[in-house]
């Protein structure tokens, strides 16, 4: 592992890779700071631009956007009391209270240091756990992959923010969209409505950019083209000794909890930050301070969301299974560059694997170096009116979609999915299950059919393979587990607390 990390560090520190890592974390922080532009929309937007790049540099940049966004979102949460990202919703509660007490600088510094420590631990975790999982996963066949994907989808449904029937309907809709085009087994064309352009299927980019990018702009415009501005001064960026002491244990707990929740399909930064906030409030000797500027309420969740961002790379890199919508796009990026993430990645492309892992540590160092000195720039950026920003977002979304296949039809699809996403979000549907099911859909169908062929038309392939059977049983247990009910309740409480704090 150490040899791999050293070799990876050499690759990550090559000038080109370092430059793209810097671009990734900078763009990630930028979109994290700006409310209304999420990492899913940004990565969808930038995916077409990475086509000509070296695959390692492209993945390093996209990864940087992901964890950079979790980093940057806290700035907006603390200063404006508007979450820059879903993963920094809970930071609004105590972070903004600290800002109102004149401790914005301390809150920003604690968030940055907590994120850095968690990112560092997360990188070590990826290097350690990935190797073990890959050695085991190399023996996986279609039944195990089918079971893993099914488990992932079940978890995404039960951890989604809306109602369960609506989330299940979104999974089914995502699976349907993945079916459009040619049947992978028979070659038969299906669900194309006689539109020739659909015979090759629906591309991930117009779907994701429409559902997340366009719908986000339309939702933001409902509240007018202006947004709230910063009222507080930032103050000193050096927390007091007392604040460091109060932050140390929550940072450690948040890092560990976030990393573990990042591993779970359907988990990720948002869930990790909610869970960390709930945990810190529970273990605190002064729970009454939460909501009034508690240091632990900033340090814990901020560490947790960054650790989860790192942890969620493990299922993708080792099994080829995306655990959330961003990882689904990351899978799309790998495929666009002719690579298949999974257990063979480390064998066939060790330089790329370790280069990506090492770049995450480099990226976290860059974030720490860049972000605190650049806080003034982010503050200025928050003053850019949305009326100037959204036309540019729309134009870049259109041009980015067109550029992938030089296809106007893809732009029609983008507009269709934009309108669909807008209406679905207005009707309180969570779109993450739809995108994840879309990404996994063709693989899910393929592995299911392959498993049945292995069992000669029976379910023996599932019943006679212990790993597949255990994972399927776990998926069944998840359906009835009270633990998930508990997690959902704590998440709902955290969201409610965040909205109360607004």
């Amino acid at each position, binding site marked *: 592992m150490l040899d791999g990390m050293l070799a990876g560090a050499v690759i990550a520190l090559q000038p080109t890779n370092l430059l793209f890592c810097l671009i990734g974390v900078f763009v990630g922080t930028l979109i994290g700071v700006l409310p209304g532009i999420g990492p899913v929309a940004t990565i969808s937007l930038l995916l077409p631009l990475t086509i*000509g790049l070296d695959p390692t540099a492209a993945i390093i940049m996209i990864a940087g956007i992901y964890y950079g966004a979790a980093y940057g979102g806290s700035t907006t949460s603390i200063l404006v009391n508007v979450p820059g990202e879903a993963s920094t919703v809970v930071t609004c509660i105590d972070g903004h209270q600290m800002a109102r007490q004149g401790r914005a600088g301390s809150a920003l510094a604690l968030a940055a240091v907590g994120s850095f420590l968690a990112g560092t631990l997360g990188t070590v975790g990826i290097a350690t756990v990935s190797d073990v999982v890959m050695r085991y996963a190399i023996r996986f066949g279609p039944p195990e992959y089918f079971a893993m994907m099914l488990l992932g989808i079940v978890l995404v449904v039960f951890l989604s923010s809306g109602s369960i029937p609506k989330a299940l309907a979104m999974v*089914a809709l995502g699976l349907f969209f993945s079916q459009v085009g040619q049947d992978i087994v*028979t070659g038969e064309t299906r669900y194309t409505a006689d539109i020739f352009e659909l015979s090759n299927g629906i591309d991930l980019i117009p779907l994701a950019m429409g559902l997340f990018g366009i719908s986000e702009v339309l939702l933001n*415009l409902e509240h007018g083209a202006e947004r709230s501005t910063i009222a507080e001064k930032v103050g000193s960026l050096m927390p007091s000794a007392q604040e460091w002491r109060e932050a140390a244990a929550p940072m450690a707990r948040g890092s560990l909890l976030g990393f573990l929740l990042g591993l779970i399909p359907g988990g990720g930064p948002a869930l990790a930050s909610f869970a960390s906030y709930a945990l810190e409030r529970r273990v605190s000797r002064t729970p009454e301070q939460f909501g009034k500027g508690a240091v632990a309420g900033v340090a814990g969740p901020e560490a947790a969301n960054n650790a989860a961002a790192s942890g969620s790379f493990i299922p993708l890199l080792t099994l080829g299974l995306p655990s959330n919508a961003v990882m689904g796009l990351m899978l799309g990026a790998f495929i666009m560059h002719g690579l298949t993430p999974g257990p063979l990645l480390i064998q066939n492309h060790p330089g790329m694997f370790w280069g990506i892992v090492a770049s995450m540590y480099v990226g976290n160092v860059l974030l720490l170096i860049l972000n605190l000195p650049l806080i003034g720039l982010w503050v200025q950026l928050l003053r850019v009116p949305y009326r100037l920003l959204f*036309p540019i977002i729309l134009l870049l979304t259109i041009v980015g979609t067109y*550029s992938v296949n030089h296809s106007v039809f893809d732009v029609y699809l983008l507009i269709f999915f934009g309108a669909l996403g807008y209406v679905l979000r207005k*009707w309180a549907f969570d779109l993450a299950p739809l995108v994840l099911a879309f990404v996994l859909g063709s693989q899910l169908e393929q592995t299911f059919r392959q498993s049945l062929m292995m069992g000669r038309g029976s379910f023996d392939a599932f019943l006679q393979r212990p790993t597949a059977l255990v994972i399927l049983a776990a998926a069944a247990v998840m359906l009835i587990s009270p633990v998930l009910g508990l997690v959902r309740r704590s998440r709902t409480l955290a969201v409610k607390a965040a909205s109360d704090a607004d």
Partner: protein
Amino acid sequence: VTAARLVRRDVWTGAFLVAVGGAIAASAAAHQIGSLARPGSGFLGFHVGLVIVVMGACVLIGALRGSDMPSLAQSLAGMRRAPAMLVPMLVFCLVLERIGFLLAGFALMWWLFAVAGGGFRSPRPALYSLLTTAATWLLFDRLLGSGLPGLPSLGLPF
């Protein structure tokens, strides 16, 4: 069931899901469905259609039984700006390959900046749209070679 319950958001959401799921299942039935042990090309589509119908029915029944739910009108409030954004984007698609990106992009951006608050009489939206269209074309076409049709297709060798 009272009239007040029928205008609840999720009654319509549920009905929408039932209709969409039914349409998906019907179109999948046109293909070979097969069995669980030997699935055909329409197998998954047919069953996801049924799942959507069942989930839609759950949402609809839940909305009819529950209390304190937003109405359809409340959930659709604020949507008036959406057509002003989406329709010009559709027009942009229709004319892109005929009049080229520079003209189509400029017109789209002028509209968006003007509707966003700049107004059509002020020179600022026109200036912003000129700058952003030119910058986007330079970035995507000249720098990244995306193949955007820059000028009108008049058979000229551009």
